[in-house]
């Protein structure tokens, strides 16, 4: 019997009277097609059928395709009169110096056809001769499309004559009325500029000059002045140290102007006879996890208050006086041990502190004096930091009250960097005269009557005394791109001098510095060293201070530690996409700053970090309140963060003079009350979640010793290399053989014994994770910037990444033991699960990873179009024009170093970073192709540089010497962590490194035979 049941879809169907169901069943579409389809009401009457339409479409597409095949007409415009030094296609190098008030470095600038394209270290210079990531990236800031292109008055373009004559008249009037005018600059260690300012003050006696450092070193300056009678900072050479004790000083970061990492790394490589190798020992007490803490042999997370106790206790131990401190017994014991080691190290010991506390700074100087430390050099002190916080506090009050009638600012942005910026801006608006020398329409420039467009340092002249007797020169490497004028030239004009700054420098140097030596030689070298030296005597007495330190009071609430990030620093170059996309060495987060919180505190405060299923990281947004000020920042749970402390980086949250893509993060300067980097704050969780763009999700190494190998100095000295650096074994005919043995190899290999064979060695002991190489790689190889959204999707394009690994136990060694003791499946599952959590105070290692240029490359065998192939010189070649974008190679790469162009990143409005405008594209290296959408790219071992070296040798008809072959990363590394060369040259340094017993290859067991090698990390525990 047939089923009588009626199924219905709608009630209407049940109504037999309704015609709707019938109607609908006849029609595919319920409604008529809209009449204005394709914009024509006459469409139904049109003769054009659908077929015709398709025909026309097809024809026009084909026609357009063929028409597009017609090549464009390129023009070539030679010079009318070619400068002698410039040969198109040949790079010129100029020595110059960057001094921007935060970073200082003697550098070489590579220019092509007159435009600077790359920053290189100037290894001949005696001080500050390595460029950090920010200095490496500074060349891109030259081509910043947001720069001010000429002088303006209230936002309207004016001529320089108008600006100068108006300001001159106004200054003269104010001088007559004796109204106070303030000249605000960052620390100027430039002897010529200081002289100019003095002359300016003679002309206008009502002008007072104040030095304002956005990030203050007041305590250290005051301490040194009290101890040695000169307001300066001592210089340090950590290569001489055997025992380094840092109490809250990020010596590998921006502490006291930075630039100490090269010397530090030298002391960290185990040297000496086998079995008796030595290296320095580094103790770090700190709250935030810094680069210094990550590299230290012993890192003890402590609050700032505890650090003061530690300083007192350490001083006590060294002088055999006991100061009662509320420290835990464990720390006391540690301090005692450290004191003993310091005593043993004697003049090779050093104690440094980053505490913003004059007492602590003086105590450190006292200890160093007592040790007779040779690491610290007081007679060649630096004046790269001069600012005095109390003076600036007073100044802001005076500006706000209207006492200061005129303000001239150069190289500072107080409306952004001052903790009480509103008070300053209110006063600035009231001022009769406000003139701001700026490269950007930044927060301060927006509130000034006059904005004087200044050139970038690569378009400027300048000089600096880096430390006593060590001078350096800045010279322009390109004609000014815009209608800009240097601050010093305007000062000269306002002082009614007919001279220009360049000639002033020249005459000042000739009469005061050079002592008969040639100015042109100094300009060529970029630096000049005179015999000038101080003879400063220690004259401080610190007994009473130590008492004070020992009685320091803990803050209520959480201790906020403000710091500067390796990428953005104080925020001057916040509009630089290379730096924004630079992954922070510790957190591996890009495009953001965040509140770093310890795991314990995060749990107590209800703050969360969540990993999304696609690998992206989300963090709760927290409210940080300080004296009524509330700042919101996302939270990142940071292993190693001292309990009871939180950290927040300066330099973010800038909005003025910035591309919208670059306006990220939170401004931490409002929390910098009284210029103290440690504040007592309260933190509360909000319901909001923030999306991070983090480039590394796997935080721990899970005990996989094949990736990062490390050992201790003791084992290194006492045991055979096979114990701490074993070669992986494979079984062949039930016999264990080395994985590198010929019998274990099933591939045929090139004969590489003739010609060049390039190898790159990476010393894990010398690498501090500073990231200069990452930016250098960007600059050399035209690596595109993809933006925060893409990074969050793991589509970052960095050819060179620096992996950071935490241990899940206190040390990596303990991790290994845990892995070894796993028994059974359930145990392994639960143990590995646990091992994903880093320890509260983990050991950290940095590992730069780029294409390993395997001799048996897994990527090459899977490419269907042979776009990836091998060269006899050891480089794995990538022919972009051949690549069709299957991405098989990336899938098959065990090191995950291949990068895919998901989009066209140049000339594309969706990626408005630097390759989208003519100005930004000027930084591109003309020897390296800019890749387009749909192709794979990766590290080439800078084949354009090795080829250039070979060609130069051929042209000159000579053999190549060791050290001539370089890559962008090995050139940028001032720490000696990256060495590059030809292993067929038996004398070469890199050849010796291949035979070093510390040498190992990444994932040796898979038999890829890489041309990149690593040197085992040795810890001096």
């Amino acid at each position: 019997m047939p089923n009588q049941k009626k199924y219905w879809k709608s009630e209407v169907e049940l109504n037999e009277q309704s015609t709707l169901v019938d109607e609908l069943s006849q029609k595919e579409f319920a409604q008529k097609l809209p009449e204005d389809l394709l914009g024509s009401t006459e469409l139904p009457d049109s003769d054009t059928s659908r077929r015709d339409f398709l025909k026309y479409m097809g024809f026009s597409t084909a026609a357009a395709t063929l028409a597009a095949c017609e090549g464009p007409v390129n023009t070539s415009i030679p010079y009318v009169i070619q400068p002698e030094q410039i040969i198109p296609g040949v790079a010129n190098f100029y020595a110059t110096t960057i001094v921007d008030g935060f970073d200082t470095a003697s550098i070489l600038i590579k220019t092509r056809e007159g435009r600077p394209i790359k920053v290189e270290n100037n290894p001949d210079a005696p001080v500050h001769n390595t460029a950090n990531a920010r200095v490496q990236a500074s060349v891109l800031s030259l081509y910043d499309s947001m720069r001010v292109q000429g002088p303006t008055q209230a936002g309207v373009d004016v001529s320089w004559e108008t600006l100068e004559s108006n300001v001159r008249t106004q200054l003269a009037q104010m001088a007559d009325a004796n109204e106070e005018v303030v000249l605000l600059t960052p620390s100027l260690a430039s002897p010529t500029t200081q002289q100019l300012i003095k002359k300016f003050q003679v002309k206008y006696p009502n002008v007072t000059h104040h030095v304002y450092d956005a990030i203050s070193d007041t305590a250290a300056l005051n301490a040194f002045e009290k101890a040695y009678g000169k307001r300066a900072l001592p210089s340090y050479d950590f290569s001489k140290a055997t025992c380094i004790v840092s109490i809250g000083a990020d010596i590998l970061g921006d502490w006291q102007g930075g630039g100490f990492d090269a010397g530090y790394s030298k002391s960290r490589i185990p040297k000496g006879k086998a079995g008796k190798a030595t290296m320095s020992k580094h103790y770090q007490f700190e709250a935030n996890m810094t680069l210094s803490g990550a590299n230290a042999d012993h890192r003890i997370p402590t609050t700032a208050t505890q650090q003061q106790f530690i300083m007192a206790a350490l001083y006590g131990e060294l002088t055999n006086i006991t100061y009662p401190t509320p420290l835990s017994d464990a720390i006391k014991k540690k301090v005692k041990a450290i004191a003993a080691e310091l005593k043993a190290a004697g003049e090779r010991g050093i104690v440094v502190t980053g505490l913003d506390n004059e007492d602590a700074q003086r105590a450190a100087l006292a200890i160093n004096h007592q040790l007779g430390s040779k690491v610290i050099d007081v007679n060649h002190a630096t004046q790269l930091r001069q600012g005095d916080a109390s003076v600036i506090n007073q100044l802001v009050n005076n500006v706000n009250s209207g006492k200061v009638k005129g303000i001239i600012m150069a190289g500072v942005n107080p409306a952004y960097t001052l903790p009480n910026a509103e008070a300053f801006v209110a006063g600035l608006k009231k001022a009769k005269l406000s003139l701001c020398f700026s490269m950007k329409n930044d927060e301060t420039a927006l509130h000034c009557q006059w904005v004087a467009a200044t050139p970038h340092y690569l378009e400027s002249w300048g000089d600096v005394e880096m430390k006593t007797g060590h001078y350096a020169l800045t010279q322009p490497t390109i004609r000014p791109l815009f209608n800009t004028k240097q601050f010093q030239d305007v000062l000269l004009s306002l002082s009614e001098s007919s001279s220009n700054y360049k000639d002033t420098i020249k005459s000042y140097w000739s009469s005061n510095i050079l002592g008969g030596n040639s100015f042109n030689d100094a300009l060529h070298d970029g630096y000049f060293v005179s015999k000038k030296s101080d003879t400063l005597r220690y004259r401080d007495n610190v007994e009473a201070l130590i008492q004070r330190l020992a009685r320091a009071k803990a803050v209520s609430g959480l201790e906020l530690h403000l710091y500067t990030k390796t990428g953005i620093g104080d925020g001057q170059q916040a509009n630089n996409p290379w730096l924004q996309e630079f992954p922070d060495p510790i957190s591996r987060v890009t495009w953001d700053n965040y509140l770093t919180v310890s795991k314990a505190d995060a749990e107590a405060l209800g703050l969360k970090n969540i990993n999304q299923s696609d690998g992206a990281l989300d963090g709760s947004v927290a409210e940080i309140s300080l004296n009524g000020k509330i700042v919101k920042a996302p939270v990142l749970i940071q292993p190693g963060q001292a309990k009871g402390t939180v950290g927040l980086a300066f330099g973010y949250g800038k909005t003025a003079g910035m591309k919208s893509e670059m306006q990220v993060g939170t401004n931490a300067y409002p929390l910098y009350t009284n210029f103290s980097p440690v504040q007592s704050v309260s933190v509360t969780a909000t319901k909001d979640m923030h999306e991070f763009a983090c480039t590394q999700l796997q935080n721990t190494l899970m005990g996989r010793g094949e990736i990062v190998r490390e050992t201790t100095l003791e084992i290194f000295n006492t045991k055979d290399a096979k114990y701490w650096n074993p070669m992986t074994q494979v079984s062949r005919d039930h016999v264990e053989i080395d994985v590198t043995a010929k019998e274990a190899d099933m591939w045929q290999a090139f004969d590489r014994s003739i010609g060049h064979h390039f190898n790159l060695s990476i010393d894990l002991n010398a690498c501090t994770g500073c990231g200069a190489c990452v930016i250098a790689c960007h600059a050399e190889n035209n690596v595109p910037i993809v933006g925060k959204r893409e990074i969050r999707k793991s589509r970052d394009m960095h050819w060179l990444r620096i992996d950071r690994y935490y241990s899940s136990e206190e040390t990596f060694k303990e991790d290994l033991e845990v892995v070894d003791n796993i028994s059974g499946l359930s145990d392994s599952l639960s143990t590995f699960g646990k091992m994903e959590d880093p320890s509260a105070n983990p050991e950290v290692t940095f590992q730069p990873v780029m294409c390993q240029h395997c001799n048996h490359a897994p990527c090459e065998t899977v490419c269907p179009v042979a776009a990836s192939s091998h060269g006899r010189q050891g480089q794995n070649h990538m022919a972009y024009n051949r690549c069709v974008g299957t991405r098989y190679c990336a899938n098959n790469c065990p090191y995950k170093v291949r990068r895919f162009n998901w989009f066209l990143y140049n000339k594309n409005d969706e990626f408005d970073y630097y390759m989208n405008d003519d100005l930004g594209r000027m930084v591109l290296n003309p020897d390296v192709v800019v890749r387009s959408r749909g192709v794979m790219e990766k590290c080439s071992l800078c084949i354009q540089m090795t080829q250039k070296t070979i060609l130069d040798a051929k042209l000159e008809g000579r053999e190549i010497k060791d050290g001539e072959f370089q890559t962008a990363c090995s050139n940028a590394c001032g720490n000696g962590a990256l060495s590059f060369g030809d292993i067929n040259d038996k004398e070469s340094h890199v050849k010796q490194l291949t035979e070093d017993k510390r040498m190992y290859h990444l994932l040796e067991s898979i038999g890829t035979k890489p041309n990149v090698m690593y040197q085992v990390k040795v810890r001096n525990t």
Partner: protein
Amino acid sequence: MKVEFNHQLTYMLESSFLAKLPLLFFSLCFSVVLNAQEPDIQKGKSLFNANCAACHKLNKRAVGPALAGVSSKYDKEWLYSWIKNSTAMVKSGDAQAVAIYEEYNGSVMTSFPQLSDEDIDNILAYTDYTPPAPAAGTQAVEVAAAPESSATNDLILAVLMLVLAALVTMLFLVNKTLRKIAAANGVEFMNKEKQSRTPLWKAYAQNPFLVFVTVIFLLLSSAYVGYSYIMQVGIDQGYMPIQPIHYSHKIHAGDNQIECKYCHSSARVSKHSGIPSLNVCMNCHMNIAEYNGEEDLEKGYTKEFYTNEIKKLYKAVGWDEQTQSYTGDTQPVKWIRIHNLPDFVYFNHAQHVSVAGIECQKCHGPVEEMEIMYQHSSLTMGWCINCHRETNVKVKDNEYYTKIHEELSKKYGVDKLTAAQMGGLECGKCHY
């Protein structure tokens, strides 16, 4: 830069002078031996070209004044002493000498103490000489002579055509006559057999095999044509754009034998061969303001045409012919680039020109014969690779190669190495 210029100029003057010295000596002896009374215009011309032409022109002011008819302006004795030592005369305060010295902004005329009075007479005779105006008749003949050859060609063609037409008519007539005779004799044509035969095209269409073969052939050939068409897209062999200044490589590199790398100097050291900057042009063209070489009237390349192109150079570089100085008003020349390689190829001239010692013509073709520059080679990858396979590396006298060559030749037992054997076929050598 200016200093460098002057330096170069004096260098050129000196060198040309030194080069001509023996010649001068020779001609001096010659004139003495022969009759010395009558000034020799021919000799005067060669002396003028050797000594004076660097700074003087006959009818136009150059570095110095125009010299046509100069003997009528000054006393002969005065001219002798002026030419032999002008500086001394200016110093002595001779009014005429000082006037001319000041008129030319104090530029000193080179002294020619080696010229005898007779030489000077010869030169003056040359400068005074006005060539007789060519008779109208001869010119007309010359003009008429040019089209003559083409006219004869046409005539021959016309006669041939006539003969052919006559032959065809004759054939037709003969056929007609023969048919008439045949008809008269009762001969009949047999057409039946022909009619019963199937026409060829039908037979062809009915044979499936033949049709099949033809279709296959057509498909293959159209595929071949299509493929060749697609493959030539982007290849600009023969590309010959019109340049802003008609620069003739034929005149410079061909007629005047100027070395390629004199102008394209960066080809020796750089990846770019470089288009010479305009100051390089002015090294010569400061003195060469007009064209006096061969003409190609058919294409319109007259002397005026070339001289006009030199004027374009002067305009671009900002050179004022009247005052013989730079005005500073420059207009860079936008040349149209002929040899364009894609961005993803790295090519270095220095490697090929200096290291390998390859002649420019190997890739750029007979440049010295090109009135208008064009792209000679296809510049495709296949073209590059072929050359790399065939060309031996120039290892001689280059220490860089010494060791590598020794080892490689020992290993492979060959004396010569091609670029390909040295790794010249690896992708990454040109693509990065």
